[in-house]
């Protein structure tokens, strides 16, 4: 089943066409990577899909329904979540509280009820807490739940963002350069984590500069350059695509 469909999607910023007539789709259970040089439009594409910015033209469909231009909270409610290239954690909140905010949507009681109906609050709170804790365990951050989020090392803050996003139990997660700032060991563990997400029912759309990780985990790759789609295919196809190599990868990468 096609989970996400992007058709002739276009977005300008002033005179710059950040995303230009881009087409691609993501099947349920896939890991699709988007690669391209800086300024290729990858982050804009994520902003469009997650509702942070609205498309100028073209369409974004999720399970066949148009979602282009919906507010971020509506898109999140449909089961799409994301992480950020420049981290967007809730500072001044503890690690587990950050994840609990992500987990709140899956609360059986509405948020208002959870806030106001006292007898049910404790039980609800407990179940959200335990879901947050298992999300932290998933990304490998146990034992740090009471730290303030901002004291975690950079790589762990990235993992925390993934934990927070996964606590929403999303059907589609958009990961924006999750390996940035991570060392080799952390990147390898991240790769394993990402590779395991489809088995948990979460389809992955990944923007990443670490080619080793992309080539290992991605089922398919979409290459963007100057806002347009340059190529699409399996990791093998992309590695052998002369156009891609000249535009972006460069011989020395492989």
């Amino acid at each position, binding site marked *: 089943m096609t989970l996400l469909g992007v058709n002739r999607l276009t977005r300008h910023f002033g005179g710059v066409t950040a995303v230009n007539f881009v087409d691609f789709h993501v099947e349920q259970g896939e890991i699709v990577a988007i690669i391209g040089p800086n300024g290729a439009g990858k982050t804009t594409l994520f902003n469009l899909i997650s509702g942070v910015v609205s498309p100028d033209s073209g369409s974004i469909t999720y399970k066949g329904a148009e979602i282009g231009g919906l507010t971020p*909270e509506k898109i*999140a*409610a449909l089961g799409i979540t994301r992480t950020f290239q420049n981290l967007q*954690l809730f500072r001044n909140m503890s690690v587990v*509280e950050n994840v609990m905010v992500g987990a*709140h949507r899956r*609360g059986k009681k509405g948020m208002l009820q959870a*806030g106001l109906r006292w007898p049910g609050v404790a039980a609800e709170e407990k179940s959200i807490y335990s879901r947050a804790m298992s999300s932290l365990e998933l990304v490998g951050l146990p034992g740090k739940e009471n730290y303030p989020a901002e004291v975690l090392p950079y790589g762990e803050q990235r993992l925390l963002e993934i934990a927070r996003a996964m606590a929403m139990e999303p059907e589609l997660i958009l990961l924006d350069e999750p390996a940035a700032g991570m060392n080799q060991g952390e990147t390898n563990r991240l790769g394993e984590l990402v590779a395991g997400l489809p088995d948990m029912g979460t389809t992955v759309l990944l923007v990443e500069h670490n080619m080793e990780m992309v080539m290992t985990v991605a089922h398919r790759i979409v290459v963007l350059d100057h806002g347009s789609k340059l190529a699409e295919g399996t990791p093998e196809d992309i590695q052998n695509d002369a156009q891609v190599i000249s535009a972006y990868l460069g011989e020395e990468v492989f």
Partner: protein
Amino acid sequence: MHINELMQFLLTGLTLGGIYALIALGFVTIYTVTGHINFTQGEFVMLGALITASMVKGGTGLWAAIIASILLVGLFGALFERAVIYPARNSPVVTVIIITIGFSVAVRGVALLIWGTQSYPLPSFSSGEPLYVLGATMNKQSVWVLCLSLLAVSLLFAFFERTVMGKALKACAINRVAARLMGISPQRMSLFCFTLSAMLGALAGIVITPTTTATYDMGLMLGLKGFVAAVLGGLTSTTGAVLGGFLLGILEAMGAGLISSGYKDAISFLILLLVLLKRPEGLLGKPDGKRV
């Protein structure tokens, strides 16, 4: 100067401070989550007081009237948010501030038409002899004021720290974009904050009425005092708002007692000026900090 007198001023100050703290919390709750400063806060105080006083006058039991009034003012706050703030949500901050000032003038005008200029009394919540604390007298209503404001403050803290909704509100205040991507709707949070702040304001107006009586224009001064207390506490911190409220109440009472009661309001606004000029981030705020 007797120590008894100082104690008396301190007790008076704490009572006033409890009221200011409740009003300041209304300002802070709305500001942290929506970024707006709501100068209609004082009118919530007035409406709470006058609705309760009218209901009691009409024969409703005191506690029933109090609860009904808090709920009604909460509803009023929600309607205010939907009808006035929501349509202006994308306007600059200054525009929204001016809208809230204008709306407060309108509410005061309508209150004048409904209730007139006379003052409405409310009986003390309990009768009996005043208490004596270290040589100072404290009437029963002051005890009520202190206890109810502390109760409201503790409930609010528990709410922000212990409930998921509270965390969602905090998240919305800290990083709105990320909160929206977690499925939190800022508009719903805004609606909730205005409702909550209206109820806090109403409570403040109700508990102070047995001491001061209620009039249509009481909200102006009380709202400004609450704002001073909130600024004193840094505008972004609930703890700061509570401390600011009590500090302002005590300074006012001391100033009134030691200098002259005529300077009571002047002292508040002098404090506001000093804080804004010398320490705009408030007593607890971090300089140049981001709004959180």
